[in-house]
């Protein structure tokens, strides 16, 4: 079983997690830039963070046989702090980098006018850089926030097929399914979504445009929730090919729109090369660009 976790905050996780993830079949991840719990107060702490998720973190992941990519953006919560606004000015120099596969996480937290502005400005940047967008939906007033998110996407130059609307649940999946955007689900130990409800949603809405992630971070979360969904799908009668579609081919198809995915070989003799043998990235094949 090969797993692509399309949304996980590895800077908050330990090397033990990387070991367990690799053992369970995780071979590629996308780390969206987001808030860090402690609010930031200057552009410099953002650029150090962006450099870290494009530098040290992919290096760390490669030592455990996992390909690491990132999405870059100003998150909605910090978009409300005028001291962080200048982050928008440095985004263009990050959005041209090799391992940046989307703009994100964008979207709404409290649905303020500042969030409106920053969200729309970053969708314009995504269109300009021919990148897809990863959009977070709010924890509070979620259905209203999701509808407003879809309105902003509709008014932007980004195609719905280049947008994941993330953290969906039973109340919000329907409107996103109709919009043509990809549907993202963050499977958590006790909030957002769990693996059994996830399988029910797959039954009801099908496997098309479905994206499942662990969104593991510094809170109560589990980097193996993608694997738990795969197991729940198999137990519910889905085939191994269905599992591969949801947990590998779907996220690959979405992020390949960036033209910048660099995936490890997941089948054949090169598939198990890790650690020292992947020194200088030799086990990572440049591909999956077409």
């Amino acid at each position, binding site marked *: 079983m090969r797993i692509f976790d399309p949304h996980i905050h590895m800077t908050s996780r330990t090397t033990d997690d990387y070991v367990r993830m690799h053992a369970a079949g995780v071979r590629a991840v996308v780390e969206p830039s987001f808030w860090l719990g402690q609010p930031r107060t200057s552009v410099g702490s953002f650029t150090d963070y962006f450099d870290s998720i494009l530098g040290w973190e992919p290096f760390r992941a490669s030592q455990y046989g996992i390909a690491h990519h990132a999405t870059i953006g100003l998150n909605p919560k910090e978009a409300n702090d005028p001291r962080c606004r200048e982050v928008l000015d440095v985004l263009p120099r990050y959005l041209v*980098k090799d*391992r940046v596969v989307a703009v994100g996480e964008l979207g709404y937290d409290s649905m303020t006018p500042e969030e409106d502005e920053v969200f729309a400005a970053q969708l314009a940047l995504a269109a300009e850089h021919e990148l897809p967008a990863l959009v977070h939906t709010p924890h509070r007033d979620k259905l209203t926030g999701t509808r407003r998110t879809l309105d902003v996407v509709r008014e932007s130059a980004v195609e719905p097929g280049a947008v994941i609307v993330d953290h969906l649940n039973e109340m919000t999946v329907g409107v996103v399914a109709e919009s043509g955007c990809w549907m993202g689900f963050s499977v958590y130990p006790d909030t957002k979504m769990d693996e059994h409800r996830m399988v029910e949603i797959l039954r009801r809405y099908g496997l098309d445009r479905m994206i499942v992630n662990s969104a593991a971070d510094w809170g109560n979360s589990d980097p193996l929730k993608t694997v738990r969904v795969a197991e729940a799908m198999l137990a519910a009668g889905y085939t191994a090919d269905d599992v591969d579609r949801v947990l590998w081919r779907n996220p690959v198809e979405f992020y390949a729109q960036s033209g910048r995915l660099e995936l490890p070989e997941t089948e054949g003799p090169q598939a198990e090369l890790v650690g020292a043998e992947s020194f200088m990235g030799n086990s990572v094949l440049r591909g999956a660009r077409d």
Partner: protein
Amino acid sequence: MSPTTTADALAQVASDPDTIERHFPAAARTAAREGIDGDAAREALLLALPGDTAYVVELVSRVYEHGDPAERRAVLLALPALDAPDRTARIGDAALPIVRDALRTNDTRLVAAALGPYAATQLDDDAWRQAVLKVIFMGIPVSQVSGLDRRSDAELARMVRDFAAEREAAGRVVPPDALAILALVDTPAPSPSRAD
């Protein structure tokens, strides 16, 4: 953003050097589409920068500072060419802060790339010895260090011997590369720790 070619990027950088900020990060993708080596394309962009030494060093440093690890590695690999004797804007030792920055990282790709011919020529003895010891620690093959034969000296041998003794005392393996360095330096060992 309309796709550009390596040739277009080179011409733009030569006439408007600030555009290197946009072209350098995308250069490896462009080169891959054209079947060209990405590091070579990035080196060509740096060599295309017009202006005197101070200006070239300022831009090269900015490209490094704003680069991801692949970009930073490409800058490090290009330093010998930027310091070639026949260049009018030869960088001399002015890019040493870049080398020192790379040597402070924990990234084996950057540390290895920092210890090329430029560091062999320009880096002072203390920093160079510390770097070689770090290479052994990190498990980077010492064969990747330029000028090892010429620059290894008695002080480096002492440091490596102490490192080997520390490893032996802990019951851990002494990397063969440590012994390879000792073999390069013909100095008597101060204390015969092992008769065999």
